[in-house]
């Protein structure tokens, strides 16, 4: 198990990675700038949890690749004509997902010719290739059908010239197009984000929709009936997309292509992991334990990797709906980065009624509900006997930490991502960024830095920006990504020394912030 290779994990240009199964004693104690992937603070000891070919989304030509590389999970159902008809007929997503009643937001009813509608910072539209509306973030699809018709006309017009439309730019506003046959996604943004960032967000929305239907089914539907109204199938699931869009604005994990963990002593985490490992079943592929938006642990079937996008979709599904609190949930879910063709079946339940701890057991068999339920029982039985359970519940009381603990003056906030593990850590927002508006502004600054560092043709190693409101420093090495936010009073000398100091601190705390020894069944 230790020696298994992380196939297809070819981050950046560094093909000669240090062995992943190095012992803890091998790991450099002082984090030097020469850290390569696998030795940075937070690097995994054995093998990666996630399937991440690159830390930045490859936006082109991935659909072709993934068909080849994704192992086929057992597909309990064939995709034949009858099934589609059945789906179209009655088995809509609404029933399966039993959505949150609060999702019926008032934003839907606003007047699409009003100034208020126009002045939203980010619009997202999804339409079919026939120009039929599928989703709009604001307003109703009906009222926007002519606007979406124009969007489709622009896409087809440029396509007719054997070309592809990408974006339209005006001062302070841009429109970005993403064609993912059979869907077209359009984002209209006044946020100043780069095209690449906006495309990445549209990509998430695309995967969100695929996760509800599978790409095979989507293709099948539109081949069958070109101007099919997909809203019939997606009715009641819009809140998932709404919620995902809010996450994209707030959650650094979606920006960094990483997830963050609940800070927990490694001894306790290891016990939780091994309890999950023990509660295995034939068709169980992934066992995921979440605490709110934080990962506690993830145990996977050997050779099967979970892509961070898929994990974020699971986070979004769980976080968007309160119905899973009512008991054990059983829902089909397609993990599009794993396989766009088939459904997995997820057993979702909270460990205790009022707890934040949510267990997700992903199986390949649609008839596996009782098996999964039993896995959970076994896990609970094992865990409740151990002190680790109590430790975990204690840890839930302070799921974050303050930046003061690092002890660097003028440092307000930071994001640190370990590339080999695909995990990141970040303190809670400090006083100055308490309001939603300020938090989103800070996220916007991080997004800018991220875009500059990951520029598709002119990537940067180092970015320092000094402005009237804050000083920012971003660094990219083969092992980690680091974003620091200082008060405007911080000097360059301080910023330079802060990097080393922070890396040392993270190294010291890595046991708590990262999952260093992920397990497989």
């Amino acid at each position: 198990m230790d020696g298994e290779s992380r196939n297809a994990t070819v981050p950046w240009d560094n093909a000669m990675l240090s062995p992943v199964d190095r012992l803890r004693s091998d790991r450099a104690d002082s984090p030097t700038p020469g850290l390569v992937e696998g030795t940075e603070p937070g690097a995994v000891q054995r093998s990666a949890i996630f399937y991440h070919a690159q830390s930045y989304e490859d936006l082109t030509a991935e659909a072709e690749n993934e068909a080849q590389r994704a192992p086929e999970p057992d597909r309990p159902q064939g995709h034949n004509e009858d099934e589609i008809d059945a789906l179209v007929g009655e088995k809509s997503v609404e029933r399966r997902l039993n959505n949150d009643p609060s999702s019926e937001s008032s934003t839907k009813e606003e007047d699409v010719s009003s100034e208020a509608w126009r002045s939203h910072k980010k619009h997202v539209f999804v339409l079919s290739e026939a120009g039929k509306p599928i989703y709009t973030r604001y307003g109703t699809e009906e009222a926007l059908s002519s606007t979406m018709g124009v969007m489709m006309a622009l896409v087809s017009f440029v396509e007719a010239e054997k070309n592809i439309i990408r974006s339209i730019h005006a001062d302070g506003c841009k429109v970005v197009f993403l064609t993912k046959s059979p869907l077209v996604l359009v984002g209209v943004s006044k946020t100043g984000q780069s095209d690449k960032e906006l495309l990445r967000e549209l990509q998430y929305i695309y995967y969100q929709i695929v996760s509800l239907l599978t790409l095979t089914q989507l293709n099948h539907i539109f081949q069958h009936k070109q101007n099919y109204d997909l809203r019939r199938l997606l009715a009641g699931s819009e809140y998932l997309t709404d919620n995902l869009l809010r996450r994209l604005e707030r959650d650094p994990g979606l920006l960094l292509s990483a997830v963050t963990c609940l800070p927990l002593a490694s001894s306790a985490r290891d016990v939780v992991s091994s309890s999950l490992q023990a509660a295995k079943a034939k068709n169980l592929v992934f066992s995921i334990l979440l605490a709110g938006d934080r990962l506690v642990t993830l145990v996977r079937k050997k050779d099967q990797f979970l892509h961070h996008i898929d994990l974020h979709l699971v986070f979004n599904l769980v976080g968007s709906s309160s119905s899973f609190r009512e008991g054990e949930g059983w829902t089909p879910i397609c993990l599009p980065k794993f396989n766009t063709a088939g459904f997995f079946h997820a057993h979702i339940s909270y460990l205790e009624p009022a707890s934040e701890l949510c267990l997700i057991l992903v199986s390949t068999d649609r008839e596996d509900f009782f098996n999964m339920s039993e896995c959970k029982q076994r896990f609970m039985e094992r865990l409740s006997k151990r002190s680790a359970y109590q430790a975990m519940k204690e840890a839930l009381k302070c799921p974050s930490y303050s930046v003061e603990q690092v002890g660097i003056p003028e440092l307000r906030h930071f994001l640190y991502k370990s590339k080999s593990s695909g995990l990141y850590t970040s303190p809670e927002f400090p006083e100055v960024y308490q309001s939603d508006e300020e938090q989103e502004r800070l996220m916007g600054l991080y997004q800018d830095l991220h875009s500059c560092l990951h520029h598709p043709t002119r990537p940067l190693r180092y970015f320092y920006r000094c402005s009237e409101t804050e000083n920012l420093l971003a660094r990219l090495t083969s092992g980690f990504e680091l974003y620091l936010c200082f008060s405007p009073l911080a000097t360059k000398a301080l910023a330079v020394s802060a990097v080393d100091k922070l890396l040392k601190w993270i190294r010291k705390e890595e046991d708590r912030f990262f999952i260093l020894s992920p397990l497989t069944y």
Partner: protein
Amino acid sequence: MASGAQEKQYTPSLLSFFIYNPTFGPREGEEEKKILFYHPSEVEKNEKIRNVGLCEAIVQFTRTFCPTKPAKSLHTQKNRQFFFEPEEHFWIVMVVRNPMIEKPNKDGKPPAIEYQEEEILDTVYGAVVRQCYSMYKLFNGTFGRAMEAGGVELLIQKLEKFFYRYLQTLHLQSCDLLDVFGGISFFPLDKMTYLKIQSFVNRVEESLSLIKYTAFLYNDQLIWSGLEQDDMRILYKYLTTSLFPRHSEPELAGRDSPLRPEVTGNLLHYGRFLTGPTNLKDPEAKFRFPKIFVSAEEGYEELHLIVYKAMSAAACFMISATVELTREFCEQLDSLVGPQLTLLASDICEQFTINRRISGPEKEPQFKFIYFNHMNLAEKSTIHMRKTASVCLTSVHPDLMKILGDINCDFARFDEDEEIIVKAMTDYWVVGKKSDQRELYVILNQKNANLILVNEEVKRLCATQFNNIFFLD
């Protein structure tokens, strides 16, 4: 194709350039009337109409979301289109093909083409389109003026005449940050020499009272101008990228022979007209000068542009177009200005050499920089070699120039003072500073430097080159 065939790289190039007014053919079937100019002209009519239609649709669609800010560019896989509405309802569109790499394909298949979509900077080419209009306006006045004078027919005629030639001088592959600034390079001068030039200008304007405005340049750099800044900016562009380079060769030849064959009387001087008559002695000589339009109290005024040069010194005299210029006037100007300008030119040259000697021998510095001041349009670049008519050579890698462009875009987004320091993958450091309308960009080639060293290096540069300018630290 042989399997060992090389990849071929193509730089960005002009695909098409057109001007239309959607109000000219509002009815169906009349779309062609909207099109006032279309390059390349041999494009089939329906395709022209379709391409104009797409632009109209993009502009209209963008209004759905921001009614007040018009669309400026459209990005596609193969090209970028830039839109500019200089006068109400008149749209100029420039379509630039993305740079691409042609990869030879084995088995006799056609080569694979890969478009490099991230190479073109919107700010740079947007500025190029605006420059196209400014240049048209300098020599023709506004579109509206042509419409008033002779309707659509005259406008179409003028556009054809101007852009047919002008577009050939566009060199899209070498456009960069300097096009965004559109600045003016000023000649550094001591007070004494500066006063000499000013008194020369005053004397000439007094003796030849027809002269309305004067501009004085040395070595392609501006010393004195009586025009409005924006007019001077575009005139400067014309002089330094078009007129001067065209005349540089004969001048070099002239320097070798101390006496011009056509020297008159006992006045020995190197003065000659760059616009108007090439030889005053020629009885056939025509006394026609190019006309330019500059801003004035009531809109604009039309002027004759006389450019007169002696050695490296050039004086531009502008005279109201209502006056007819005669042989007598030109002879008078030649005899008055020629000897004085020759003298001034050698004075400046001497002063310049002395100053250079004082500042010490030039050693290859560790850094290169671009400076621009939005207030007086002053620009200075040690990155660019001398500009010629056809190419603008830079001494750094194009990717670094694009990083400068990226930083400039970033500065443009926020109004406040800022500093950005980045390290590229090639280990070059790039520093951008924006402070009180001034922008400074420095490229340092110090692989092992860190942020602190880079900061000190730039401080040193500011102290030596811009000792009296305050930059945010």
